């Protein structure tokens, strides 16, 4: 769906700030002074302590929130226009599939909303089921699948309309470590196949490093970007996780997180280091 040429960045964020409940006693400054440019096809992770505004930043890009200051352009457009043009695919921590629809019908929902005809939708959904290795599960109901399988359906659904831009908020957060690593592998493969631009929120340093071209490190109170760390791992495969560069990048990100002013950082990010 992307019409962006090489000169238009997929996402341009300039001086974005977000204040919730402004002027009221429960005022929260979620983000201040965010600048970030993401090139088409880039994979960007947002990492940082809970409450530093990762989800909020992602939601602003996806036009689910309106920033209180600054400007966002998506494929050179207003985020609202980008949303109406179906430029986004979204996946969250919960799969959020609809119980009353089959797996296939869940995947086809974005296409239904784009008024695709039935035959085209079915072709596309079976392609996607193959892509996420669930070819035999199209007729099942989401609640008959395991958590990992549901999450793969959710990712297939996010990819349905071949959006140029994927926004993923801790999509693997609720999965066990084994499933999680397998899903990371699949996501890398899918992104390579579709050439999508991805913004990926995570709590896990290895996950961020494994997946990303750049890791954006954020700090809390006020939520801001403290570091942007490029990861030069080349093509990812199973050996990547044993690569010295992989560990070096993990260390760099961890130190960047430690260096961030918020003391909560170490606690909330030590979990996935094993």
């Amino acid at each position, binding site marked *: 769906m992307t019409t962006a040429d090489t000169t238009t960045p997929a996402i341009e964020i300039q001086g974005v700030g977000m204040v919730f409940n402004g002027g009221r006693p429960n005022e929260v400054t979620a983000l201040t002074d965010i600048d970030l440019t993401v090139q088409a096809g880039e994979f960007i992770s947002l990492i940082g302590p809970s409450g530093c505004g990762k989800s909020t930043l992602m939601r602003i890009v996806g036009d689910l929130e309106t920033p209180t200051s600054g400007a966002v352009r998506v494929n050179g457009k207003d985020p609202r226009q980008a949303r109406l043009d179906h430029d986004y*695919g979204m996946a969250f921590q919960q799969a959020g599939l609809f119980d009353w629809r089959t797996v296939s019908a869940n995947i086809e929902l974005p296409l239904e909303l784009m008024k695709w005809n039935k035959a085209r939708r079915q072709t596309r959904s079976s392609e996607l089921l193959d892509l996420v290795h669930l070819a035999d599960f199209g007729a099942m*109901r989401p609640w008959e699948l395991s958590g990992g399988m549901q999450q793969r359906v959710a990712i297939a659904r996010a990819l349905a309309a071949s959006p140029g831009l994927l926004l993923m908020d801790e999509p693997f957060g*609720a999965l066990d470590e084994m499933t999680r690593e397998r899903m990371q592998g699949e996501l890398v493969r899918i992104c390579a196949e579709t050439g999508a631009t991805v913004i990926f929120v995570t709590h896990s340093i290895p996950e961020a490093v494994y997946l990303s071209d750049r890791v954006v490190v954020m700090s809390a109170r006020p939520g801001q970007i403290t570091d942007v760390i490029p990861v030069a791992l080349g093509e990812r495969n199973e050996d990547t996780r044993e690569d010295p560069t992989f560990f070096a990048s993990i260390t760099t990100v961890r130190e960047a997180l430690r260096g961030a002013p918020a003391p909560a950082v170490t606690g909330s990010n030590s979990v996935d280091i094993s």
Partner: protein
Amino acid sequence: MATTAPTFLQKPVDPARSNSGRSGPSALSRFARRTVFIIGGIVAVALIYTAVKAMGHATGGTWPFTSMPLPFSTDDVTMPPVMDIVLRFGQPQRTGDPKNLTMWILEAMLFTFREAFVGFIIGIIIGMAIALIMLRTRWLERGVMPWVIVSQTVPLIALAPVVVAFGNQIKVPLFSWQQWMSVALIATYLTFFPVAVNGLRGLKSPTPLALDFMRTNAASGNATLWKLRMPAAVPFLIPALKLAATASVVGAIVGEISAGVRGGLGRLLIDYSAQYLSDPSRLYCVVIGAALLGVLFVALINVTDLLLMRNRPREAR
């Protein structure tokens, strides 16, 4: 990382569960078990009734071994014997009447069912319309909900004659207002309430996650309503419909009585209670017919439930 749930909390794939909705052998055995329970229950009630009667007869109307009188009379007028009631179904309504009582009651049930069902359907439409209005804004919800609640505090007995009087005043060309339509409206009055209240809860039940998903996909308000809110409301509406079904039968019978409509259970109840002393079993027969109508109506909703919910997870049913 408080949000990371361990794997064992997630639903595993269980092939045994995959095809076992409410259909298949398990549904059948459930049906059989339920039938046994119902018949057993009816037999138990008949036995207790007969036993109480026998006790009253033996003691001469007092509690056993005391001189304390029973709070009710157990004679054959107040409590006709079970067999009299059962046999009464097969006898003529009154001497010389070629139709037997069962036919009268069945016809009356059908007549009352028509009123109740029409009222029920209109009630669902009105209830959902009110729910949709309340869904629009919090303001409307705050403004409308109190009226919906107040409406249910008006006693039916007071309301029914007003509805009937209004109905009789309606003069539209090519349309003659029938009295049973007034009765249907009275049934509607009892029906719309649970539908509006539960319908609103159901329409509001989608998670922010699901709503965000629809928004991300640029879904229109209509698409969000039909593809998300309405399907999500179904599990909330089913119990409301069961409530509404029984309420519509009650509403129809009360409506018939206050409107003086002939042909339904309400009229039979009035007629037979006027002649109660000479033929007590007959009134019991109509009461049983009225109860049966409510049960059949709820059974109809249960079938609808099975159809609508056949593909939902078990917890949601």
